[in-house]
């Protein structure tokens, strides 16, 4: 019996990941009476959500009463180049204001308008000032509020516990298996439903804003259990990461800098974004510096600055400027707020940016421009889910937040991630709890399956090989950075695929030193499977989409292709390997189509 061999717990719902989505899911499932466990790889409160800076997008209309869910829906769809799941985009735009207000009920303190309401800030691709925020540390406020609320609801939290495999019985979820990081001992959860809230896989790239946690676990566990992945070709390269010194390359610089008046410049002191306005956004984008600057104060009579085009557009523009020789010696461009806003305003609105540049780069952002360049930031793709319920294609398996695909289409707008976590985190908890209640009969744990997983996980201690897990990881990061980056081409993508296959072979010979007690080398060795699976799925999908759209740019197919506008690329396990399929987008109702066609 597996129960006798391994520490075993019994729950209705197990939530994997304790960022915004996982916490919100656990709160909801628990409130509905489901016995709920929240399992996370780090300490509680340290997940990626804590690093989110800019804000939570929600059409509350506190600053611009004209704003409403329809405008937010339209912005989200257009930002995603219309590849979004329309129903998710609709639910998201409709429900996010309530989710923000709920945080206030739980103690969050957002910055205020003069009337005492929640203040909202400008961000890329959003027609109106829409992001509820706390300076530039909104994620911290959100995770702390949710964390404290969850703790007081008596949810069982398993910290520094890494779940690696899902268990199924007759195709339905029956549990999850993994290990405690501290003791290295295995742990088995028997449960009726699992909510994946594990985030993305951006740590497979070298220049990244993502931490060690972003190893693609959820995507991999889901695929291994038979679930569909979707849109894996769409990685978001955030336009503004730090570029200098080398040790901080990739650390995020919030879009709030541009939202609050900062502008991008090349070494010729040109505001180059005016040269990169795509046809798709021309009607809604300012053409002159004068109009762009006036827009900050008066949105009714001016159009948005091109500095705040969606992230994919801005990242590509920066890339082109650097390639054309107008970049800084460190390979970035300038982001200047110092010459445009008073020092006390900058310090009040962007305290952590001020701090970050001062301490890590010796740059005073109230006096000098920042140097920035694109950094791998967010995975639009992930596990395919039902829009309303977040159910994956495996019964009992739900997914919410970055690990899920659909809401953001080909490109995510800034601010739409934190709202995604709240809206779909809640729905995942709700539908997982309901599903758990509906499960009839008992679910079995396949003991042989569990023993096999345990043996696989211990292999790095017993192998005769001598591969260093850190070396394999850094080789993968080089491969993805160089060959599956912002600008892609078939020959390089195929080369990447070959390298990934070689790395998969090498990872079988990974050797770790020492014992199982908080052994970080072993932890990384075990994460290689998911890092490589994530990278492979992303590369395969990138080869399949022979067009350029959103976060996927092909040098060999530089334009959008109407044929690809109608399909998602789906990746699923078949016969021990990953297989591709093109599947049609769900048909959008006419009344929503009409919203997209309205000029403003």
């Amino acid at each position, binding site marked *: 019996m597996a129960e006798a061999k391994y520490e075993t717990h019994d729950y209705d719902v197990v939530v994997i990941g304790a960022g915004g989505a996982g916490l919100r899911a656990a709160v909801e499932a628990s409130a509905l009476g489901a016995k709920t466990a929240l399992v996370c790889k*780090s300490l509680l409160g340290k997940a990626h959500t804590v690093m989110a800076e800019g804000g939570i997008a929600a059409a509350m209309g506190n600053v611009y009463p004209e704003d409403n869910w329809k405008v937010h829906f339209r912005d989200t769809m257009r930002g995603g180049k219309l590849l979004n799941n329309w129903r998710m985009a609709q639910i998201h735009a409709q429900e996010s204001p309530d989710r923000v207000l709920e945080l206030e009920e739980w103690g969050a303190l957002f910055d205020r308008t003069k009337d005492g309401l929640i203040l909202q800030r400008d961000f890329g691709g959003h027609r109106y000032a829409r992001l509820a925020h706390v300076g530039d540390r909104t994620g911290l406020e959100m995770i702390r509020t949710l964390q404290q609320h969850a703790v*007081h609801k008596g949810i069982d939290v398993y910290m520094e516990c890494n779940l690696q495999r899902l268990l199924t019985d007759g195709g339905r979820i029956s549990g999850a298996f993994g290990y405690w990081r501290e003791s290295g001992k295995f742990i088995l959860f028997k449960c009726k439903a699992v909510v994946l809230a594990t985030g993305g896989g951006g740590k497979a790239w070298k220049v990244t804003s993502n931490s*060690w946690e972003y190893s693609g676990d959820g995507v991999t566990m889901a695929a291994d259990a038979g679930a569909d992945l979707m849109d894996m070709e769409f990685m978001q390269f955030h336009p503004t990461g730090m570029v200098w010194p080398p040790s901080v390359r990739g650390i995020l610089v919030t879009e709030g800098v541009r939202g609050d008046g900062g502008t991008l410049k090349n070494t010729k002191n040109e505001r180059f974004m005016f040269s990169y306005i795509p046809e798709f956004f021309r009607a809604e984008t300012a053409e002159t510096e004068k109009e762009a600057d006036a827009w900050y104060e008066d949105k009714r009579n001016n159009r948005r600055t091109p500095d705040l085009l969606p992230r994919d557009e801005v990242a590509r523009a920066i890339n082109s400027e650097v390639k054309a020789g107008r970049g800084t010696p460190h390979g970035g461009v300038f982001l200047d707020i110092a010459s445009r806003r008073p020092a006390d305003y900058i310090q009040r609105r962007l305290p952590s940016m001020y701090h970050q540049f001062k301490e890590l780069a010796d740059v005073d952002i109230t006096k000098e421009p920042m140097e920035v360049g694109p950094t791998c930031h967010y995975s639009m793709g992930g596990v395919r889910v039902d829009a309303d319920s977040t159910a994956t294609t495996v019964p009992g398996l739900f997914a919410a937040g970055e690990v899920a695909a659909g809401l953001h289409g080909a490109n995510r707008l800034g601010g739409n991630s934190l709202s995604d976590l709240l809206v779909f985190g809640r729905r995942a908890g709700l539908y997982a709890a309901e599903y758990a209640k509906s499960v009839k009969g008992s679910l079995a744990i396949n003991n042989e399956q569990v023993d096999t997983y345990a043996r696989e996980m211990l292999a790095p201690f017993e192998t005769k090989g001598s591969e260093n897990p850190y070396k394999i990881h850094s080789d993968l990061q080089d491969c993805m950075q160089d060959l599956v980056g912002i600008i892609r081409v078939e020959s390089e993508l195929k080369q990447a695929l070959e390298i990934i296959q070689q790395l998969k072979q090498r990872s079988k010979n990974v050797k770790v030193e*020492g014992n199982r007690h908080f052994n970080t080398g072993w932890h990384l060795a075990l994460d290689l499977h998911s890092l490589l699976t994530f990278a492979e799925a992303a590369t395969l999908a990138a080869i399949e989409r022979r067009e350029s759209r959103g976060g996927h740019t092909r040098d060999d197919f530089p334009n959008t292709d109407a044929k690809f506008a109608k399909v998602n690329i789906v990746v699923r396990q078949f016969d021990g390997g990953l297989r591709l399929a093109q599947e049609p987008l769900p048909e959008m109702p006419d009344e929503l189509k009409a919203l997209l066609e309205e000029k403003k």
Partner: protein
Amino acid sequence: MADQQVHMRVWRGDAAGGEFKDYRIEVGEGQVVLDVIHAIQAQQANDLAVRWNCKAGKCGSCSAEINGKPRLMCMTRMNLFQPGETITVSPMKTFPIIRDLVTDVSFNFRKAREVPAFKPQPKDADGKRRMYQEDIDRVQEFHKCIECFLCQNVCHVIRDHEENKQAFAGPRMFVRLAALEMHPLDTNDRMELIKQKAGLGFCNITKCCTEVCPEHIHITDNAIIPLKERVVDRFYDPIAKLLGLYSKKTSD
């Protein structure tokens, strides 16, 4: 600073004991102590245990003592040290060792559970909630806490007195309690807890916590001292006692 070799002394071991181990390693331009620890991990000691996440001073995971001073490893630049200087990295002293630089900080999560939750007053008549920026500025300062627990680590009430951990919540929890007490909408009463179980009286305001806070929260001046004043007003003010003047808050 071009690539150059440094001498690092890193504490290795577990609850049973351990020792400082020496590593010589190349340091690159602009690096922080965490970069160097990662380089040691990748090149010389794959199993070196360390916590980290954001690498930008936002998550509070990589707390340690560097040359004896409590700091975040990700925000400590290598050029802070003299060329040729040996740099010592050890785990936080106040918490039990798990392994190498990783300590058991569950004390803080236990104390957090004891703090009664936020309990808001009713909404305005139109269903909205109004708060003004000037009324929340101070509480927002407290909400900047990244829970690195360096303040807990440096606090001498518990740093050298394990026995005090029962009856003392520590500066991090005082910041949390102050945030709730000063929240314009909160109605819960935590004064008894603050005085008794959280042990505010143990603090003799030496400001060690404020000095190590990477978020520059004025822990002593803005959180602890005002809480002490509230305790005095509530429990020791003879006039208020006589008149039975109590705050709007109720015990929960």
